[in-house]
């Protein structure tokens, strides 16, 4: 018998806290502290504590894991909001229960991306002021400033979007929410009346439209890849396929993130009827589609890089093809794609646990691919005379701690949010009340 989703369901995390919650908080806290220690170490001694060095006669690479993590997190952020916007824009009700999870993932991931930029710079103390002072001049020419601009815009859009949808929920569930956060609820629901509901709904729709247009054009299919592809000095980057390539990686990473979140949440809070197998299976299929596109674009790059490429392009492609990290990324993606397609023919292959394994696999593959893309790009510049100075890069422990730290901090972010407001929209429960009974038959 299908259970009807109810308000009780979405309030469960706010009312009950198990021992596991504290275990998760403890582990994530330790992870975050490891990074804090690493970063303090870096602040004390400078970026010399990283594995980075100067390209050229320096024999190293100047951008590495921090920027790799930046792209990875910002990809998860962009993919997450595209997912959520698509749900609202196209009325994909089946995925309504994951919409807010995706938005929260966006906020968390975007914060980590911003943090990585801060950590990456040699003088974080000057970052904001220096950028603001010269903004009107530099916005004309520096892709890095375009990046700051659209990411800020994007953060505002996403936060507005989340805040607007929260008003509806919080005003209705106010009595059941913990008293500890009363000031927060009062700010969020300031001046709320029921008459605003249809207006807010329209605003949210327009925001979703703006996001779905902005994300591929200007964000992860635009400014982020442009940071690299506009540099004629680096043949591994100077390639107009980077925009679509980045976008497919972003969407694959974000869907993977949402699958993992959904899996954990439904197990902890007994949300099998909300975040059903059907939802996870559907997300896995979408994952398959974007992984297919990712591999297709890789094929484009490899073919044009090996067939009759100019020497500099051929060199960097050859180096990429000779690197085990590349084959790890591609191998994992091919294998997962094959299994996702196979499960379409034989559904018994698929299981929710396998979907999580796929997701972890894809997230590792996309991180590996992006870090390699960065490093190889800088190791094989157009000016090839330096090739005799062997360049090598391996992230130092301080840099690796940033990976552990950011994953931990996003985990902490979710653990906190779970206790402050519902991570599944009231709308999702309400729409289930209406026409969604049939979707749960498979359970």
């Amino acid at each position, binding site marked *: 018998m299908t259970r009807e989703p109810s308000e009780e369901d979405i309030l469960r995390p706010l009312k009950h806290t198990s021992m596991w919650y504290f275990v998760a908080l403890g582990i994530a806290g330790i992870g975050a502290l490891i990074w804090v220690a690493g970063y303090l170490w870096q602040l004390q001694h400078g970026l010399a504590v990283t594995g980075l060095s100067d390209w050229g006669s320096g024999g190293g690479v*100047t951008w590495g894991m921090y920027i790799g993590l930046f792209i990875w997190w910002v990809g998860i952020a962009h993919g997450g909001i595209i997912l959520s916007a698509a749900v609202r824009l196209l009325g994909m009700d089946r995925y309504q229960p994951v919409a807010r999870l995706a938005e929260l993932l966006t906020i968390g991931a975007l914060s980590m991306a911003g943090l990585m930029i801060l950590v990456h710079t040699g003088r974080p103390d000057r970052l904001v002021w220096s950028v603001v002072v010269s903004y009107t001049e*530099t916005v004309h020419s520096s892709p890095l400033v375009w990046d700051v601009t659209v990411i800020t815009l994007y953060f505002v859009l996403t936060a507005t979007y989340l805040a607007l949808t929260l008003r509806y929920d919080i005003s209705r569930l106010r009595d059941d929410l913990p008293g500890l956060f009363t000031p927060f609820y009062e700010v969020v629901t300031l001046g709320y009346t029921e008459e605003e509901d249809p207006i807010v709904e329209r605003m949210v729709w327009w925001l979703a439209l703006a996001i779905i247009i902005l994300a591929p054009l200007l964000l992860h299919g635009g400014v982020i890849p442009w940071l690299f592809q506009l540099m004629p000095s680096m043949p591994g980057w100077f390639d107009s396929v980077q925009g679509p390539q980045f976008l497919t990686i972003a969407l694959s990473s974000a869907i993977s993130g949402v699958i993992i979140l959904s899996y954990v949440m439904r197990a902890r809070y007994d949300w099998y009827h909300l975040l059903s197998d059907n939802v996870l299976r559907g997300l896995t299929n979408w994952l398959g589609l974007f992984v297919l596109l990712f591999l297709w674009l890789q094929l484009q790059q490899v073919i044009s890089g090996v067939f009759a490429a100019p020497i500099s392009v051929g060199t960097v492609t050859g180096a990429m093809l000779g690197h085990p990290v590349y084959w790890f990324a591609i191998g994992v993606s091919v294998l997962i794609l094959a299994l996702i397609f196979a499960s379409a023919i034989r559904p018994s292959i698929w299981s929710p646990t396998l979907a999580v394994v796929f997701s972890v696999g894809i997230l590792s593959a996309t991180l590996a691919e992006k870090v390699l893309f960065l490093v190889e790009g800088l190791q094989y510049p157009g000016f090839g005379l330096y090739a005799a100075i062997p360049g090598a890069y391996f992230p*130092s422990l301080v840099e690796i701690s940033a990976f552990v730290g950011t994953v931990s901090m996003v985990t902490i972010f979710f653990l906190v949010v779970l206790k402050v407001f519902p991570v599944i929209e009231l709308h999702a429960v309400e729409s289930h009340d209406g026409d969604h009974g049939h979707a749960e038959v498979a359970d």
Partner: protein
Amino acid sequence: MSADDHSCGRDSCGCSEGNSSTAKTSILDQLGDEEGFHPMGSGWEDEMREMLDDTEYDAELGMEMARDAMRLVAGEISEEEFYEQYHDAVVDEFETDERPMAELFEEDEGEPDGHVAKLSELSAEDVTRRDTMKKVGLGAGAIGLGGLFSNDQNTEDPVSSTAAAASDDHREGDQRYGMVIDLERCDGCLECVVGCIDENGTDRGANWMYVMTWEDQNTEQENFMVRPCQHCSNAPCAKVCPVQARHIRDRDGLVLTDYETCIGCRYCQVACPYGVNYFQWGDPEIPTDDLMTGDHGLSGSELRELSEEERVDTLQDSGDHIHDYRGREVDSRGRVGTMGKCTFCPSRQDGNMGEEYVGTVACMDACDSQGMSAIHFGDLNDENSRPNRYLERAKEMQVDPEDKQEGVIDEEEDIWAPAPHGESQLSAFRLLEEIGTQPNILYLGNEPGPEAEQIEGPVPYDRLRDSRDRQVVDRRKDVTDEMTDFGAAGD
């Protein structure tokens, strides 16, 4: 048949860059030849004629003008002759004669030398050239002139004058510091590298001046590449900087980093095609007190509050080696977390070190002191500056290729002898010019091709010590890794 089919495809016809000198030779040869005048041969001319027949204008006039245009460029007839010979015919045909010479004639009658100069100025700009062709309106004439204009342009640049690469946005009459580096004079002693380290107090391995020894698998000849910052007039590093720390100094085109503004994002390093940037990964090895900073005791912002006159006096009296005349912190190695690179020694140019140091750089002094004089630094916009004078002399010194061949040519193998060549064969190049950076270093000597490989030089870096008795290091990462290993162990 469309006109486009005959437009000068610069790679396939004699007008292409690599063949420019050959093309010119054959023009000279063929001018005397009754069969055809165009370097592409009589077949080409027939096609031109056919194309002109399809237009509404007089094909014969076009062909005649094209022929005489060739003679004009070869110096057989003067511009006045060329202009006057066709003036009436052109007016008849087109109702107006707007050839560029027309304007020039009106402007400065009786100054024949000026016309040539102005004509070549016009030719230097594509737009003007296209415009000219449009005005002339004569297909074949235009093709003839167009082709030759490209020849002129290509043979002249980059050897002719270092002034050719002046930036569009650089003000007329400004100084533009740059270098002519004669790689043939370099012996790889690395004294310039040490001179730079001594001057700027850079960390070990941060070789702002760097010398590479390289060979090409085809020749195995030992060559050098002396690599300071190229101080590009269209510098990509300055373009991408998010905070305007990396900038081009208006007064003289120096590409500098303001160490007080730089946020250390390293985007300049990523955008630079030459790999000349060195980040200050940790605390500088040489403390600020050891940088000959002078003793005025003023901070950068205090210096900037002074009037320019007061500031310059203060800097010069104290021999400040960090701040330039604007009071910006741009000289010597930077602070921790900022980007450094070759600066062309701004405090020398601004007179902080004394008048005798203006127009000199540390690497050039070191090179001169070794008796090598491969590096020639100075204002490229000044034709009497050291680099421009050196370039002039280098051109004069060139051996005529025919002399080179003397006594070598085998009668039977005469077919292999290079065509007689009136132009200078001086090999000059700018690094990666095709990227459009407008570098201000002009090299004389062998240009490294894509297959060039760095090899061990005659003097290994680690055999040298700087004036502070630190070992010179080739590969910067060996130094930065010391900290990483320590960091890893300490974690």
